[in-house]
């Protein structure tokens, strides 16, 4: 995994914290000695719309900042419907990590569309690791650290040194929340390791 460019697509709903997760991932990659590109979409798409942020890193220089279908080594979704929507971006055999959170889009809330059938079981069929990220974050006493818990799980698939992650978290989250965020990160790692067993 070290020589080729690695592509991580983070997706969710505007306001869920995908941007901060991407920021931490990118800085950890930089800390671990990689070239990095992080691509975000701002503006109108942020008003509760679907959002994706793409982080690409590699030792030999990253070219494009976007991801095509079948190109993402990992898709990290903060929400189940968005995981289904972004499924085509996942590389064959790639890592699909999904928080067990579901947020209904406005067309569903107003009765003009319906939710996809059996989203979670379909994701599991696609080898998704469905993670109770909210519960894990709450367990360590930091319910807002869902994004950091997800990163912890993702970290088990990357070869950054633990120090690169924890230093990055310490440098980039509010001082008061460093300890709790590192705890949430480790809890995410522990969850993913248990899944592998």
């Amino acid at each position, binding site marked *: 995994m070290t020589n080729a460019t690695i592509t991580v697509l983070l997706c969710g709903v505007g306001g869920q914290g995908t941007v901060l997760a991407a920021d931490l991932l990118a800085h950890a990659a930089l800390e671990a000695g990689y070239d990095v590109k992080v691509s975000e979409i701002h503006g109108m798409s942020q*008003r509760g719309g679907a959002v994706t942020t793409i982080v690409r890193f590699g030792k030999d220089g990253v070219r494009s900042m976007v991801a095509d279908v*079948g190109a993402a080594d990992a898709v990290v979704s903060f929400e189940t419907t968005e995981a289904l929507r972004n499924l085509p971006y996942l590389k064959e055999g790639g890592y699909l990590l999904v928080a067990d959170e579901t947020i209904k889009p406005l067309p569903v809330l107003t009765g*003009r569309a319906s939710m996809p059938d059996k989203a979670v079981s379909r994701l599991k069929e696609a080898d998704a690791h469905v993670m109770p990220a909210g519960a894990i974050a709450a367990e360590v006493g930091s319910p807002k650290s869902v994004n950091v818990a997800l990163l912890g799980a993702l970290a088990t698939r990357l070869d950054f040194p633990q120090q690169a992650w924890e230093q990055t978290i310490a440098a980039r989250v509010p001082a008061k929340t460093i300890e709790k965020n590192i705890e949430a990160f480790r809890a995410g790692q522990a969850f993913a390791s248990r899944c592998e067993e």
Partner: protein
Amino acid sequence: MELLSGNEAIAQGAWEAGARIGAAYPGTPSTETMEAFGAKEGVYAEWAVNEKVAVEVAVGASAAGVRVLSTMKHVGVNVAADPLFTAAYSGVGGGMVVLAADDPGMYSSQNEQDSHWYAKAAAIPMLDPADSAEALAFTREAYEVSERFDVPVFIRSTVRVSHTRTPVECGQRTERDLAPFESNPAKWVMMPAYAKPRRKVQLERIDKLSEWVETCPYNRVEMRDASVGIVCAGAVYQHVREALPEASVFKLGVTWPLPKQALRDFADAVESLYVIEEASTYLHDGVAACGICVADTPVPLPRDGELSPGLVAAAFGLEAPAHAEAPADVPGRPPALCAGCPHRLVFKELARMKAIVTGDIGCYTLGALPPLLAMDTTIDMGASVSMSHGFELALAGTDHRPVFAVIGDSTFGHSGLSSLVSTVYNRGGGNVCILDNRTTAMTGRQGNPFNGETLQGRPSRELDLEGILHALGIEDVRAVDPNDAKAVRAALKAAAANEELSVIVFRSPCVLIDRIRKAPYEVTAACTACGVCSTLGCPAISKDPELGVAFIDEGSCIGCGQCAQYCAFGCIVSTDKGGFDD
């Protein structure tokens, strides 16, 4: 190394070059550039009311001898085109750099026009960085180019340059001495007697730039496999390198003027030459005009939208890697007005009265989407007011639905005000709703003349909106709380009934400003499943798919109480636990 967005890197480049003054109007994807510039030491930065004013401020400061930065989105260049075209005759005092940030794919814009055409039409040199490191270096260098050739210089970015963060090595600032201004009407007074000779100066400059661009360090030829040669610039260069790593590439750093001879030499060195660009034919036409035979890709490239490595690869017949099909049953997730948004009830009531609504640019353009469906037109900044005047003229003497213009406070300051002056002057009737939510919300809550906040937090004053409207001679001006459904309905009715021009100022702060939450509302068991509350399109309210009864998500509800006013059965009630603080 720091990870900077393209926008932050442009600000850094301008700062390193010693730029001292910046003026801009916010617009995605350009906005953070001036915010980042304004946060630096030793600079003055301001939000102007529109891009034309921003560029004029910049031209003035440049004439006075200071290096200046002006930033805008692509459609902002349309607004600023007037001063830009003639500033390209006068030239500069201190170096002047203008960011034109394009939005191919229209993530947050009303069109995907290509700013390259402006560079060519106005004879303003244009540099196209492909990542943040280039954005910094090109911007810093652009000031040298500007002063050397006595001309403003464009930096052109796209969403994928402006909003992609890549590693950057930041440098030191070089302070510049003020080049003292001396009166020189032959350079700065563009009346025919002086503009004619200045036009000759411009033509000579075009020749000098055309010569310079042939060997300037910003264009780069990368020879690899000579069977395929590709001309490209900006973010597209990165996609090309990813998709076709063996292809030879002419990477244009300067996209106007084009290096004609260098391009011909490249064409001679490769078997087939292709031009790859996004949503435009600018580069293709320019390269073809050099007398170069531009080959068609085996599969045509999309003519609109963004490119990606996959799209470039597909144009050369390469197949996409194995991937899952997009599930057909995933509902769309369009953006929506926030829970508690003060614009919501204005649109609900306009829809109820079946008004013809001319809309404008901002968050409130979302009022056009279901379930509100309360906007009939949106073209450009300020057009709501002038287009409603056009509707009134065309429909005069017919039995027609009431016509309402809907415009935000910042957009009104941008250009709605001049539209309104024109309507008043021409004795137009009609109705204008100014949605004053106390901020420029869509682009991230910037200051504007009507909230009195300035970019660097300098003390200012709020302009008196009603005072301005009265001063124009408009008699029917009323201020209304847009969260009060009855008041909104009554004001719209009264305005529609009045033959004369009516202006309603709906004033209530954007919910994202201070994020005050009151106790959430809930739906009682008496809900009759009438479905009216869900026609408000509030993201906190849902309708049970089987029973049709309403449900309010307490985590999303901010307790604004808008919906309770629409429940004829009194089934939406506040949980009123008292003193909710978040």
